[in-house]
């Protein structure tokens, strides 16, 4: 029962590694399916979701919270998919979207620029075009991570294992990842499954609140949902109505409490 996220730059053989890891561990594998499912449930075009998860916020987006809303939708679906376990996710930002789950093995595949350019050229691009595309993509990813999560995608502390694909072959990298996934820290214990389910509940509750109350924080432990909001927010009719909806839609919620005037805890979503 492993949950593995594989992050990589474009043309870094990450997809090949992810597919082989999934085959070896007999896990489900997904990448773009996440956006497909999110789009289907929340009726947001896939392109818009892809932009939200790939491109850095523009000048106007910094003042609105549309990206935050779309990311909440994506995280709700992702945590739902992950709650079942046995999954390899090699799509965008997996290591950041699932940062609250300690038993997820977060892997980064790196490759040197020249090798990446050569691989990109096999898709029919000239050397200059291939290089420009890769650099532009890296730059966009860096900006996105910095703006949304204040993190650098090249920062190794975000991952449990970073492997350079130029030195080790795809097969070696796969072997390394599979061995690492079998370690105790990444075993999916009953406590881990419970944590995943709690996180999924919290994100699904956030989905209902995020559009009108983007700054509320939600934590969930053993099905007990705690919502951190301001006094003003908590007394609005809209807020109360949404709380009723949350209770109705999520049968797994054991208890729901609203805390006002308290600082939002660091582990809140």
């Amino acid at each position, binding site marked *: 029962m492993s949950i593995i996220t594989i992050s990589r730059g474009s043309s870094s053989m990450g997809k090949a590694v992810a597919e082989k890891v999934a085959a070896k561990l007999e896990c489900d594998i997904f990448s773009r399916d996440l956006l497909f499912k999110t789009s289907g449930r929340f009726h947001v075009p896939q392109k818009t979701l892809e932009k939200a998860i790939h491109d850095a916020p523009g000048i106007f987006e910094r003042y609105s919270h549309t990206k935050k809303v779309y990311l909440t939708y994506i995280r709700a679906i992702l945590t739902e998919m992950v709650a079942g376990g046995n999954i390899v996710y090699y799509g965008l930002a997996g290591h950041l979207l699932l940062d609250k789950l300690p038993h997820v093995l977060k892997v980064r595949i790196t490759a040197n620029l020249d090798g990446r350019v050569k691989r990109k050229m096999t898709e029919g691009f000239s050397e200059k075009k291939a290089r420009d595309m890769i650099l532009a993509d890296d730059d966009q990813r860096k900006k996105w991570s910095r703006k949304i999560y204040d993190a650098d995608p090249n920062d*190794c*502390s975000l*991952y449990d*294992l*970073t492997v350079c694909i130029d030195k080790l072959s795809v097969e070696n990298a796969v072997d390394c990842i599979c061995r690492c996934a079998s*370690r105790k*820290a990444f075993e999916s214990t009953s406590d881990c499954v419970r944590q995943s389910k709690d996180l999924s509940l919290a994100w699904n509750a956030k989905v209902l609140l995020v559009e009108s109350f983007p700054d509320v924080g939600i934590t969930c432990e053993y099905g007990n949902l705690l919502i951190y909001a301001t006094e003003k927010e908590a007394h609005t009719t809209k807020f109360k109505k949404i709380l009723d909806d949350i209770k109705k839609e999520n049968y797994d919620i054991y208890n729901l409490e609203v805390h006002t005037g308290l600082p939002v805890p660091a582990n809140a979503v």
Partner: protein
Amino acid sequence: MSVLILSSENKELENQIAQKIAERLGYTTLDQQFYNEIAKKYTLDSKKLMDAMIITPSFLKRMPSKQWYYYLSCVEVEVLARLLEDNCVCWGLAAHLYVVVISHVLKVRLIGGHSLMSPGQVNMNEDKIKKIIAEQERSRENWSMTAYNRKEADPGLYDMVINLDQVQPDEAVDTLSTTMGYPRLKAMTYSKNNLADRALAARVKNVLLKSLTDIQVDAQNGTVVVTTASVKREKSKKIDTIKKIAAQVEGIGYLEVHWNKDMLTEAAMSYR
């Protein structure tokens, strides 16, 4: 038939992991105790040699730039000579900064694991530990940039980075021991020649740094290229000196000296 180079901010864990891997694979070890041997061979002050591997050149710390570069070069020469012997685990000697693009050398960075620190350090509060670590990282980055123009924490410098916050040290030992067995890391004639070229370049640089400054040395298939800079009127004198000194080094097939004009000194002199 391969070499493992480890690098980490957490010296205690690095030491522990490196020793275990060497023991398991039956490899020799190369660590900071090697400084004493180097100091003895080159008749250097071993304390100063160790300091040179930590601090950047500074007049106040009594470490002039010329001496500092020479000390670093002595370490580089001796470490590379030892690595030529293969089957070795090396750590604490900054080898990850000067052993580059050698296919049978696996370079690994160990990060995190601060919760596994010694009891004395654990008693500190988390903020203090974070502050100390950040300070250490800044100073190491400053050192590595001055010495080799490379950032020590740059993941591009390593073949593998393991985060010890989640992975236990024993698990890291398992992973690395298995990785060292991959056929890709077996020493080939080509990779051995590459390492031999690096060692040759380091030896040439070392003899030149005894009396000269502003020297870069590269070697390929026994051909050594020395790049230097000086004012124009000293050009032939400097080239002759380099050729004369470098000739003492064994193993040079052909020696080439590339000279560049030292624009700054030239401008200063013409102003006078």
